[in-house]
């Protein structure tokens, strides 16, 4: 079942920064990182790198990609695709929209 969560004002997340929405809030398997990319858009991805346990939200945003701080694996924020090794599998993506200045995250209940 899909539901929408208001995760706060978009202005609170400057370009190149991320906001982590804990899984306790989202009801998903992983925390979700809402990322303000350098293309100006907001994207939402699962926060844990598919290579090793590390928070992607702490990584560097380059264009519409995010680089895991641990081993430099890069993911496409739009699709979740693993662009560089050592990651080989994608991370999950979610829908996030800006409405009236607020970030609305759409999550599917995993449970």
């Amino acid at each position, binding site marked *: 079942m899909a539901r929408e969560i208001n995760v706060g004002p978009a202005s609170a997340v400057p370009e190149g920064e991320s906001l982590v929405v804990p899984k306790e809030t989202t009801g998903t398997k992983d925390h979700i990182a809402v990322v303000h990319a350098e293309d100006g858009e907001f994207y939402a991805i699962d926060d844990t790198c598919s290579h090793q346990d590390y928070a992607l939200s*702490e*990584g*560097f945003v380059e264009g519409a990609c995010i*680089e895991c*701080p*641990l*081993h*430099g694996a890069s993911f496409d924020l739009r699709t979740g695709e693993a662009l*560089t*090794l*050592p990651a*080989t*599998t994608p991370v999950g993506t979610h829908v996030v929209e800006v409405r009236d200045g607020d970030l609305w995250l759409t999550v599917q209940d995993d449970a």
Partner: protein
Amino acid sequence: MTDAARPGSVLVVGGGVAGFAAVRELRRRGFEGELTLVDPQGLPYDRPPLFKEFLTGDADAHRLLLAPPPWFAEHRVALVARRAERLELDDDGAARPRVVLDDGAVLTADAVVLAPGGRPRPLAVPGGDHPDVAVLRTRADAERIAARVHFGTRVTVIGGGFTGAEVASAAREALAEVTLVSATAAPALTAVGPALAARLHVMHAERGVDVLEGLVTRIDHDDTEAPHRVHVRRLDGSEASVVADLVVAAVGIAPDTALAEAAGLEVDGGILVDAAGRTSHRAVYAAGDAVRRRGTEGTSPPAARHWEPALHSGQDVAAAILGEEVPARGTPWFWSDRHGVHVEGAGSMLPVPGGRIVDRAVRGTVVAGFALDADGRMTGAAAVDDPTAVKAARRIIDRGIVVDPARLADPDVPVRALLRG
């Protein structure tokens, strides 16, 4: 370059990160031709975990794979689990290169990529060639060592560099009795700088590893009470010896140039290549630990034999083969995990003339170091348990940003904040 100049087929020798990166990048860039990867070990796997979690049993073989098994069929990559015995080239380049396999089969392709990697350097002392003197490079090596390292095993690791430090740490974690023989009291000095090198070295003793600073002079093997006795001459000239059930030699790697040399390619401390991985033969490229860039003669390759440079060199070769622009690569970066800490570095921590080192400490413990040149531009960085700081520092280095040394030394200022100037 015209399409006609793009090769119709590419054969890659070596399934480490460089060889696999070349294959993956060729397909990522839309190469549609025949693609073959030759490696006697079969499915390409990643090596860094072999020195770390794989040794302690915390990662299984499947976790090592650089791509899930179906990836190869999905991307029309033929995996040939054979050893390449010979590369045959025509001087005039009229015929396609031929790779002869250990079963006698001959493969040809328009372009060949050599990514054979490195071989562990042998321990050149009497007794250093005994089968119980293990080296660690392949998954099979790691499996052999892991099977013997457990509670109470007496393990002597020779070499205090990254490999030696990681193996000593993993063996200690497996509750072995570990001795580390290091030629210096501060290994990895140019990679992490003096303060972190000292801190990391002391960490061995803190975690219960016996550290001997000196050089191994010989290893005796035939005592029944003591399976192996490693003799060490300490730095102060005194002699010591240590009894071991297993000896691991981690004294560096040498580029595997055998195939290239026999084929008549130019080799000098590595297969000689240009910035795009072209060898002295127009149809042969090379990548990874086996290569050396032309123009770096006489210099040591400090950062060249780490994981990321190997990855990039494989990707760059793919671009070059397709006649596409080879991307500029930033400051080299590496990581190492030992004794529960994550170490990273970028650039060189050997200060340039007129430069200096700025250390960042938290309550008296150095957590990061930065090398600055005379103008205050960063030339190197290293940190313990702060990967974001090093990723930020790397960008500071690449962009030539002048940083305030006082803020750099202040642990309350994220290095990332300095990136914004």
